[in-house]
């Protein structure tokens, strides 16, 4: 390697601002980084940090309302800012290409995929349409699509999310760009699909010597793919450096806070998370001095007065903080007030004596696919001249005989990929969906088939917290009205008493009582989620269903809500059904875990049992797919194809995608129940010894964030 290699991309002091009605919104301010040829740089930050704006600014795709300036913006040694729109257009797609977050919206719904992949070759490389189409099929093959000829003729809606994202990557590669920008390319995908896409990107990068600018909020993904990382906060760079060093030894307080907020996928001592206090500053009216100082536990007077300059705590690193040299020895946890270990109650929450609070037996729910006409088929029976009609509807078995039990004060985690039926299960237990069959017993009362009138007392005891903070609160009601309604509804309090109780509830979720007069649109995402929790707690329930309750939140906010839930559980003795796709969150919070696949349970057990072998092969695949910042990768990958077909009830429900499939027995015989330890159940044809011998992708104890 010749030492003085010129960088492919140089960004110095990039600023983007928007004129708003009342002033100027500073979306990006003084962003600088450089990308060497063949390097992968991760751009990390929470929502509102401006990371996507960087990508659009580089491509020249920000609208005319954005004011863009930079001291230096060079690509391949040539200035980008001074180019004409036409020159920029020629550069886009040819020299730098981008893959967007949500593959479905980024593909044109009315053009076959092959043509969309071929377009850059037609317009940048001057290929004829037919040649380009042939080349596109080749590209689709290269990005790991099995039947590229078929896929090329398909329309986007006919492909699964992972296939769509592969097609988009193929499109980006079509004109052989030097720089590939990936804007949250795996955020919309399931974790097993995400792992495959990351594998693909890694191999493409090696085979094509691509330079990659990888934008993500997910530090684990960045750790997996990028040599260096650049952390953005509120439109400014706060730290850049080699990924491994930055994550092992973060220098900027914000980086430290982010890492301390991250729940780890590990067995063993469960530490309370240390979230970052406060919220993002108002970018129309940024605070003086360091943008992070209002939230920084290390701050001093100077931080409030002067914006910090970059300094370098190590090779290739630069950090925008006045106190880099001084705070090295003080960990984030110490700085914000110490991380108490989660005091584990003696004997766990499920004290053996108490009977379970919630019992579900053999719950079933199926949905008919399509309408009346879709079930009508004309088939020609053998030996007959004319086809005959038959009416055979197909069903999606959202719940296919699910049983579970939750003890008072216990957190039962429910994990699985999207579409596995976990949300249906949570809602059916609360009778928001009527089951087809099966029993639901809450606090000794059978509600599986009871009429609404008889469920009412249970509705007070069992409540739900939803995923989406924007949709879970009625925008036309104040926070006070929202929280007071359950009190009224169940006749628990009214008038001044209700107002006092609302205040108490707000305090319980760590919000000031003055929030009662606000409307939802005046709250941040985390605050809305807290209000949703307060509403659920208003009736003093004993059981909460949390349906992806922290998934839509940024890491630092998510950590605070997780801490809150844990506190509430301990203070109020609440039992939880905690539904999530995020295994790290479950590992952090849950006592026991159910792993669900296509409407049925593959494995269940205490958290320590499920995270360690013996595994169900699906659990193993899920665990090894989680991208993490604390260790290297393991390679169990699921096939993506076949995921769309319906399970017909024969054999094992995981047969289509199982990496450890045994053969015919898996396709024809329902797998037996293995019980390696009391309470730990696995449904699999493998012998227990085989499963126990699988390598574990999870560490026994988490390595400290700062060794």
């Amino acid at each position: 390697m010749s030492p003085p290699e010129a960088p492919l991309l140089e960004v110095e002091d990039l600023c983007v601002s928007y004129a708003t009605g009342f002033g100027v919104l500073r979306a990006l301010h003084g962003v600088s980084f450089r990308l060497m040829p063949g390097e992968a740089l991760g751009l990390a930050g929470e929502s509102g940090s401006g990371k996507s704006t960087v990508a659009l600014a580089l491509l020249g795709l920000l609208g005319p309302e954005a004011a863009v300036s930079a001291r230096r913006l060079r690509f391949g040694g040539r200035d980008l800012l001074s180019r004409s729109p036409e020159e920029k257009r020629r550069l886009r797609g040819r020299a730098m290409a981008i893959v967007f977050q949500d593959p479905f919206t980024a593909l044109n719904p009315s053009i076959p995929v092959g043509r969309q992949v071929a377009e850059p070759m037609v317009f940048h490389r001057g290929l004829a349409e037919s040649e380009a189409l042939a080349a596109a099929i080749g590209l689709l093959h290269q990005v790991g699509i099995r039947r590229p000829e078929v896929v090329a003729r398909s329309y986007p809606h006919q492909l699964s999310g992972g296939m769509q994202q592969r097609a988009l990557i193929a499109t980006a590669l079509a004109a052989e760009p030097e720089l590939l920008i990936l804007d949250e390319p795996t955020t919309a995908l399931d974790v097993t699909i995400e792992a495959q896409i990351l594998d693909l990107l890694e191999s493409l990068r090696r085979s094509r010597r691509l330079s990659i600018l990888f934008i993500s909020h997910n530090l684990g993904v960045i750790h997996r793919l990028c040599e260096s990382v650049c952390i953005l906060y509120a439109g400014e760079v706060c730290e850049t450096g080699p990924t491994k060093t930055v994550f092992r030894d973060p220098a900027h307080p914000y980086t430290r806070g982010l890492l301390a907020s991250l729940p780890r996928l590990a067995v063993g001592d469960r530490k309370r998370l240390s979230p970052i206090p406060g919220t993002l500053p108002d970018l129309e009216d940024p605070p003086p001095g360091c943008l992070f100082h209002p939230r920084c536990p290390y701050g001093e007077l100077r931080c409030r007065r002067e914006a910090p300059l970059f300094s370098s705590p190590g090779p290739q690193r630069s950090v925008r903080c006045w106190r880099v040299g001084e705070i090295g020895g003080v960990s984030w946890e110490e700085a914000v007030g110490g991380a108490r270990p989660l005091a584990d109650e003696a004997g766990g929450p499920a004290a053996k004596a108490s009977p379970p609070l919630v019992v579900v037996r053999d719950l079933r729910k199926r949905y008919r696919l399509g309408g009346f006409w879709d079930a009508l088929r004309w088939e020609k029976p053998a030996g007959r001249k004319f086809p005959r009609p038959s009416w055979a509807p197909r069903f999606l078995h959202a719940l296919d005989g699910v049983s579970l039990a939750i003890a008072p004060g216990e957190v039962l985690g429910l994990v699985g990929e999207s579409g596995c039926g976990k949300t249906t299960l949570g809602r059916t237990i609360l009778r928001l969906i009527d089951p087809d069959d099966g029993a639901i017993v809450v606090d000794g009362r059978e509600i599986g088939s009871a009429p609404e009138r008889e469920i009412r007392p249970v509705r007070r005891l069992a409540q739900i917290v939803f995923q989406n903070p924007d949709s879970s609160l009625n925008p036309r009601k104040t926070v006070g009205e929202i929280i007071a309604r359950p009190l009224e509804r169940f006749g628990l309090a009214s008038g001044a008493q209700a107002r006092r109780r609302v205040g108490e509830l707000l305090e319980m979720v760590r919000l000031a009582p003055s929030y009662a007069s606000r409307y939802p649109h005046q709250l941040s995402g985390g605050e809305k989620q807290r209000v949703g929790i307060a509403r659920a707690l208003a009736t003093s329930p004993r059981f909460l269903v949390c349906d992806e309750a922290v998934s839509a939140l940024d890491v630092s906010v998510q950590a605070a809500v997780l801490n809150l839930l844990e506190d509430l559980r301990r203070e109020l003795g609440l039992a939880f059904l905690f539904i999530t796709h995020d295994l790290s969150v479950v590992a952090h919070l849950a006592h026991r875990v159910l792993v669900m696949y296509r409407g049925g349970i593959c494995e269940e057990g205490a958290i320590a049992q499920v995270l360690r072998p013996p595994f169900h092969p699906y659990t193993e695949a899920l665990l090894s797919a989680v991208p993490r910042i604390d260790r290297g990768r393991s390679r169990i990958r699921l096939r993506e194809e076949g995921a769309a077909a319906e399970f017909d009830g024969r054999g094992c429900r995981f047969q289509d995608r199982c990496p450890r499939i045994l053969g015919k027995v898996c396709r024809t015989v329902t797998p037996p129940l293995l019980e390696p330890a009391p309470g730990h159940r696995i449904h699999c044809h493998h012998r227990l010894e085989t499963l126990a011998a699988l390598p574990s992708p999870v560490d026994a104890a988490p390595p400290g964030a700062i060794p």
Partner: protein
Amino acid sequence: MPAGPPEPRPRRRLPGNLVTGAAIVLAVALAALLGPWVAPFPYDEFHIRDRLKAPDAVYWFGTDEYGRDVFSRVLAGSRISLFMGVAATAVSLVCGVALGLAAGFFRGRIDEWLMRLMDLLMSFPPVILGLLILAVTPPSLWKTVLAVGIVYIPAIVRVTRSVTLELVQEEFILAARARGESAGYILFREILPNAWPPIIVEASLRVTFAILLGAALSFLGMGAQPPSSDWGLMISEARSYLDQAWWMAVFPGLVMCLTVVGINLLGDGLREWLDPRLRHGGA
């Protein structure tokens, strides 16, 4: 992070078309209310000597074939037109919102049958449906209002139903169901307050359609009857005198256009003001 400028904090500035439209509508409404006191002549007073006079200082808009003052008649007509628009819209609003809520909330059979019925209603062109309803009984203003109201029920049902279908999916509705709230509470306290904006916008559009349809029916002789000063009827009567007295047709027509433009501006302004996505898009 979506592309484009980050969402600024919501600030409500009244759009220009809203203000302009409101001003025009207010003026027409005032004319309708104060018409009888402001008008220089009673709308049905004959001035046989001044038949078919061109506009001058006395008869600002000229006179018709009986020497009636066109200006006074136009003023009086505003009352009929506004009443037509508002009352007919009220009819379709009351029926449409109720049916739309029911269809969107209960879905299933009710939805199926209601929507088929609406399809049936919609498979008649509006003017013809109105004519048909009016043909059943002798024409009168009330029946015109009812006919026009019925014609536009399907439009309101569709809007209400689709916004209800969307809202039913929202998590705050699920939260209400998790409390075991009654269907009535969910419909009227949780859904309806959020469903108003699109319904209001649609209704404002329907007011103009109702005015135009009512005038068209009168024009065809199936709405208001002589000696009423309905604008549509005035234009219809003016047709025989186009050669001698163009003002008889032109002035009622122009005022009607102004009114409808005003209401449309108001409706568009409302839409921009109520729809947060358009508020920043400038579309």
